[in-house]
């Protein structure tokens, strides 16, 4: 698959729900429409909930890639201001 | 005829005035109660002259203090 170039990255592997999503949302809020955020998150609840919550807010989920170390990288494109 | 008084539908006599309704509803100190009919205020002097119609909606707005003691 094509490499996605992120404009900003955030690591939320040290956080638990809902702070994983909250932190991702705060960082995303600072970006401009169309910019891409890469979120590093843990397997399990975060990998399930964070993409879903960001999607519910209207953002576009580009991909969720397994990193091979029990973490994932979520690429999300900011939609709207 | 039926009118709505503070949100509740009520049957009242035909040709009732606001003044009469205030008395009938036992509104205390009516001179200090703001009255609106169909979202328009009716001033004190006009109340006895204002005859209500079927379907009118009447609101009573009361002075209410409360909160902190006198500053």
């Amino acid at each position, binding site marked *: 698959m094509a490499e996605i170039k992120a404009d900003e990255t955030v690591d939320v592997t040290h956080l638990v729900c809902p702070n994983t999503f909250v932190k991702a949302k705060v960082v995303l809020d600072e970006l401009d429409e169309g910019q891409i955020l890469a979120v590093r998150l843990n397997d399990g609840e975060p990998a399930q909930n964070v993409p879903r919550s960001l999607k519910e807010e209207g953002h576009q989920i580009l991909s969720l890639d397994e990193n091979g170390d029990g973490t994932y990288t979520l690429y999300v494109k900011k939609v709207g201001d | 005829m039926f009118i709505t008084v503070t949100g509740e539908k009520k049957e009242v006599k035909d040709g009732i005035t606001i003044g009469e309704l205030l008395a009938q509803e036992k509104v205390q100190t009516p001179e200090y109660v703001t009255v609106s009919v169909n979202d328009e205020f009716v001033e004190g002097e006009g109340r006895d002259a204002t005859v209500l119609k079927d379907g009118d909606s009447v609101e009573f707005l009361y002075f209410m203090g*409360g909160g902190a003691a006198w*500053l």
Partner: protein
Amino acid sequence: MALTDEQIERYSRHILLKEVGSKGQKKLLEAKVVIIGAGGLGCPVGLYLAAAGVGTIGVADADVVDLSNLQRQVAHTTADLGKPKVESLKESIQAINPDVKVNTYQEFIDSSNIRQIIRDYDFVIDGTDNFAAKFLINDACVMEKKPFCHAGILRFNGQLMTYIPGQGPCYRCVFKEMPPKDAIPTCRQAGVIGAMAGVIGCLQAMEAVKFITGAGKLLVGELQTYDGLNNVFRKVKLPPCNGKCAVCGDNPTITELVDYEQPTCELKH
């Protein structure tokens, strides 16, 4: 200004809301609200705005905490008896959220100082118990073009409305003139359920938060009433200002503030 990790965690339940988000939270942190009256209404307003992270909260009240206040003025405790209410509320606010800056005005609010005080704030809370103060706050806010939220409570009833300059009627559009002394019972004479102060004060805090964040619809042109005995919340539509209001109308007759006579039974401690 970026939110710190601690702030992100503290305000996470706000940030989660689409209508607030980190932008709304930053607006709250930068906002300045003054609460006039640190009593039944002012206490819950102060506590919730502090918890919400409103950056600067002004508190004005000349009174000290009295035993009869504690039935409803939940920011004051038994240990605070005799303490100025502004100090007691300030301590409660800072215990909840040390980031909040609290300005206290332990003085009688009157025509000589109110405009000066409210000028520094974005939003004004009327938490007073008497009509002289309520008309004074209204007229001062109209003159200073300050939005404010009026509220009143009595027995099992409460009401509130919000004034936004140029957008809807003011308190005087609805209630015209000060009622004469003793014409209307106050909660000092007639009593009030303590929780009523909490219900209505929280609704005032809600108005302030919505004003600051821009979320939702304010109680402009509407009087919200609550009948606690019958569990009835109603919104009564208020006609727009007809241009004849003595203070916000086209040709105002009230252009200077005056101090109305204080109500009787003013229990000065």
